[in-house]
């Protein structure tokens, strides 16, 4: 395909139309969902007979961990699509979601630590669940590092995509770590055969926070995707008509546009 790589991203109309329709709804749902979730998590739910009030940390920790894993599947899946089919949106989708997933991973790690100190007596243990989840965080950091490591952004995307796909094996390892190894981290109590074993009064805040975090993830990922696509479109304009960015008498083209960079 002639021209620089950003041409591929320059006009994905269907996605942008879809995103523009969805984002306000995702935003509204996020606000309502977190309001309801925080109310349930911090007020309208009981303390646990064993954990006491620290059970409330679970309403941050568990949703964060779930979204961290979901986001990695998104990044890995999009990366695979980019590598296999070269779909122009796939790279954008992977790059957009990655830092959001990293943020959720960090949140899960720290909130888990804060729970572990009073409950286990330790901020950290090198058991299989915690270790594989820390690896997830390193994979996100590596993904970001590779994206930014090359002068040619397309090489960066290719390398990052390879890392993301290879790292996908970590997701089932995280999930089944509590079954395959003797871990201090407790086994699954929600996503398991036979259904959840948590009391409904605690399942409610958990599910509300998890669903809201999911919606939030989509909202911010779409925002970042749209920003990246618009940036690519701008790059295409500058590439094709550099004079338009520098000459003054062009409609409302303002004097402080990116003329200097063209």
């Amino acid at each position, binding site marked *: 395909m002639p021209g620089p790589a950003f*041409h591929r991203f*320059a*006009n994905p109309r269907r996605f942008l139309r879809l995103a523009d329709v969805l984002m306000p709804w995702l935003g509204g749902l996020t606000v309502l969902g*977190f309001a309801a979730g*925080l109310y349930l998590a*911090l007020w309208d739910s009981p*303390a646990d007979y064993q954990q*006491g*009030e*620290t059970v*409330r*940390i679970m309403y*941050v*920790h568990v949703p*964060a961990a779930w979204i961290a894993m979901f986001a990695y599947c998104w990044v890995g899946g999009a990366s695979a699509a980019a590598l296999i089919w070269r779909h122009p949106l796939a790279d954008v989708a992977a790059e957009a979601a990655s*830092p*959001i997933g990293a*943020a*959720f991973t*960090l*949140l899960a790690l*720290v*909130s888990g630590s*804060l*729970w572990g*100190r*009073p409950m286990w007596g330790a901020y950290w243990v090198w058991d299989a669940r915690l270790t594989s989840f820390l690896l997830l965080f390193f994979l996100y950091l590596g993904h970001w590092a590779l994206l930014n490591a090359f002068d040619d952004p397309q090489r960066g995307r290719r390398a990052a995509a390879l890392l993301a796909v290879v790292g996908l094996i970590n997701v089932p390892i995280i999930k089944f770590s509590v079954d395959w190894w003797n871990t201090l981290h407790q086994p699954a109590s929600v996503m398991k055969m036979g259904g959840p074993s948590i009391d409904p009064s605690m399942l409610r805040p958990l599910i509300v926070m998890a669903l809201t975090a999911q919606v*939030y993830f989509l*909202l*911010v990922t779409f*925002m*970042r995707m*749209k*920003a*990246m696509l*618009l*940036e690519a*479109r*701008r790059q*295409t*304009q500058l590439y*094709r*008509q550099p004079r*338009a*960015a520098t000459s003054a008498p*062009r*409609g*409302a*083209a*303002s004097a*402080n*546009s*990116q003329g200097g960079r063209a």
Partner: protein
Amino acid sequence: MSLAQYFSMGGYAAFIWPSYALAVVLLIGTFVLASRRLAAAERALEGSEAGDEADPAS
């Protein structure tokens, strides 16, 4: 239950509130950064599209 009793969270305040505080900081921060980037990208296009009638990629 008094406000002080509520905030002490059974003695676990030092662990619970920082968890929620970090959540708020990370989630709002991520959203704000994304929002700013999107606004900047839209502004950059607006400044040029008025003088650029035909969409080059259509």
